[in-house]
């Protein structure tokens, strides 16, 4: 063994001695582990909810694409004129990203569910459909557009029926936020509980601190032992809670992949990395909470 290694081992051993001065288990220690575990479990669920809602919102948003349709019904010779007029109006309307007249084939595809694929469209006085996409800002003034269309192209009707999905997207977004907010809340509650548990442990171990003080222990010596003990417990608890949470989320029966709402709460792809951050995050929270509590208590018991 080189002298350097001996030094390192010596330091480790000294730290082990420092750790031993904190009474081994005890209910406050169990409480810390359990609190961290339960909170981590809940955090995994909140995270899963939030991620699933996020995916949902994105999917709905993708389907919606901020589109609306304008339908122009007129006599055959008028149709082309009014289509041009409508396109011109749309050109100068703020809030519209693009507008496009649909081709016959596209319209046929749209109508297929109703008439079957063999519809003799040419024989029909079909209206012309114009698909328009709003800018992401969503500052399209629907009522103003209706008025202008009525003036310029009397046969044109604005149909933004696809908007009904918008509240869905907003709701999904909200759900995602709610999930994230719960995570913050849960971590906050965990920090508070671990702080209180630490302080309870310190209060229960007031005699230990008094004895250590009596034999000349410095703050750092005392704090080190307590902080390490509690961060470690929180880390272990959170790891256990996270594992259980992941197991529970995975075991929850998933909706079939085609399901439009929730694809199941499960984690997918890189989102797996998120729950794995919970234990170290809990340990950091516990470290901070314990350290603050310990130093505060040491100040108080001086």
């Amino acid at each position, binding site marked *: 063994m080189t002298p350097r290694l001996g030094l390192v081992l*010596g330091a480790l051993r*000294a730290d082990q*001695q*420092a750790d*031993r*001065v904190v*009474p*081994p288990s005890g209910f406050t220690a169990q409480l810390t582990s359990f609190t961290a575990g339960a909170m981590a479990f809940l955090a995994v669920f909140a995270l899963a909810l939030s991620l699933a809602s996020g995916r949902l919102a994105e999917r709905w948003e993708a389907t919606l694409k901020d589109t609306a349709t304008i339908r122009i019904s007129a006599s055959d010779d008028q149709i082309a004129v009014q289509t041009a007029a409508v396109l011109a109006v749309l050109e100068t309307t703020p809030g519209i990203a693009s507008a496009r007249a649909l081709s016959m084939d596209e319209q046929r595809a749209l109508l297929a569910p109703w008439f079957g694929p063999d519809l003799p469209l040419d024989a029909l006085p079909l209206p012309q459909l114009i698909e328009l996409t709003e800018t992401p800002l969503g500052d399209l003034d629907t009522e103003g557009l209706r008025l202008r269309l009525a003036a310029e192209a009397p046969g044109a009707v604005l149909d933004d029926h696809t908007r009904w999905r918008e509240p869905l997207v907003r709701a999904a977004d909200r759900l995602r936020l709610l999930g994230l907010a719960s995570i913050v809340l849960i971590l906050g509650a965990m920090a508070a509980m671990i702080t209180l548990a630490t302080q309870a442990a310190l209060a229960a171990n007031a*005699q*230990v601190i*008094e*004895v*250590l*003080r*009596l*034999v*000349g*222990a*410095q*703050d*750092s*010596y005392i704090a080190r032992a307590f902080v390490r003990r509690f961060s470690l417990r929180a880390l272990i608890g959170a790891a256990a809670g996270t594992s259980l949470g992941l197991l529970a989320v995975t075991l929850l029966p998933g909706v079939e992949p085609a399901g439009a709402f929730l694809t199941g709460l499960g984690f997918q792809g890189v989102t797996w990395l998120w729950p794995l951050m919970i234990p170290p995050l809990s340990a950091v929270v516990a470290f901070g909470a314990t350290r603050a509590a310990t130093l505060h208590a*040491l100040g108080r018991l*001086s």
Partner: protein
Amino acid sequence: MITFNEAAYSYGGGELLADMSFRLLPGSFHFLTGPSGSGKTTLLKLCYGALLPTAGSVAVFDNDTRLLDRDAIAKTRQRIGVVHQDCQFLDHLTLAENVALPLSVSGRNMAEELANVADLVSWVGLSGQQFSRPPALSGGERQRAALARALILSPDVILADEPTGNVDWEMSLRLLRLLVELNKMGKTIVIATHDLNLIRTVKSQVPTRVLRIAKRRVQLAGADL
């Protein structure tokens, strides 16, 4: 070693100890006596910085205790061995580990000191109990363990508060012999006690001075002891 300079102490009500000026010189042996509740424990606490004087000053190793921060006081305590009146231990460690605790706290190499721990434990008559936990010790055994813990760092100053209150006369004499030997090696020793027999016995072996607390003042006791 320890200098009281017009120091006074009050727990919030009236002054418990007033106008104390004296020096505990290196290598001196002092007894501290006075009726129950007169302030013996309080005075000892002033000596090791557990309490700070509410007036005047107390200097330990030439440092004014009021100017020291917590860590400096901790460092100072590693040079002072204290036997508390109600001896407190870490109940989850064995007696030997408790006696060795100051070594760990001050960062000494435990391996080298193990022999010292064993020697001290056996001198205070606790070889048979060295692996017992403190709650499984008798009152007198705890007092002796506290003395051993106070001595393990070989401190310059030893402050003992009723170190023989719960042990029989033979054991008291044995413990005092140890303290007398340490005093002859140059350690400064202060023992608070109300056992006048004890004081008389030591007086016949080494030069001692008796501080008596009466009417809030510390007086040098006369020849009546």
